[in-house]
């Protein structure tokens, strides 16, 4: 699934205008805890979150995520959007709640990071 399909599925508004939405999304991670996202990372993951601070953008950069969908109609401050734009990181916002947004994407075939979660705990035993 591409970012453009994500945007359509979630009727999301693109906050970072003119960024490339043709990129492929490999999986999705829905969390308000960035350390969880960083523990269960896989490249080109889409982050679904209600967390609108700068650390969300840093997490994208650090973990090679593909972009962010803010759920529940959350919107970061302009400063954060500009920071993301500089790095060409796609940000969108949708009025769906986390559960519905995740369900809609899952129904279209986008899977989560359960395998990474299992591997993390296995390695930690």
């Amino acid at each position: 699934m591409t970012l453009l399909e994500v945007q359509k599925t979630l009727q999301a508004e693109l906050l970072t205008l003119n960024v490339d939405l043709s990129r492929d999304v490999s999986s999705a991670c829905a969390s308000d805890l960035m350390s969880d996202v960083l523990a269960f990372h896989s490249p080109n993951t889409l982050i679904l979150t209600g967390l609108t601070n700068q650390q969300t953008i840093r997490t994208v950069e650090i973990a090679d995520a593909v972009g962010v969908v803010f759920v529940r109609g959350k919107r970061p401050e302009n400063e954060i959007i500009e920071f993301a734009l500089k790095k060409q990181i796609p940000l969108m916002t949708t009025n769906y709640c986390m559960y519905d947004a995740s369900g809609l994407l899952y129904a279209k075939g986008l899977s989560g990071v359960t395998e990474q979660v299992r591997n993390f705990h296995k390695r930690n035993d």
Partner: protein
Amino acid sequence: MIENDVLIQEYSIKGWDFSRAGEASCEIKDSLKQIGIPQDVLRRIAIATYEAEMNVVMYAKSATLRCEISPELIIITFDDKGPGIENIELALKPGYSTATPEIREMGFGAGMGLPNIKQNADSFNISSVVGKGTKLEMRFNLTH
């Protein structure tokens, strides 16, 4: 700075400075990318460095971050002045966190940072003196 074929970069990190939190880790990631470090190990280095940097921002007063690059090995060390860690074994358990509600509101405090650093580094060492500070060293092999 270059010493015996080892390139050394140093950064200073300030505690509780959330506006710049993660900047040093992103700079290190960019410069390692430029010298051609493969994506997989690059991501592991970036994640471990970032988690350690966030811990300094959240819990310590200040730290020196040192990145040593040699052809076979990258060594990242954080040397911080701060409260130290009383029980390191406990701190390494997934889910253990002393994060304040303020920190949790910012999306941290899952107690996943140190366990994740341990998993991403090829080797990892932590030592701490309560009331003085914490020293964290992580190593990443570039040859397998």
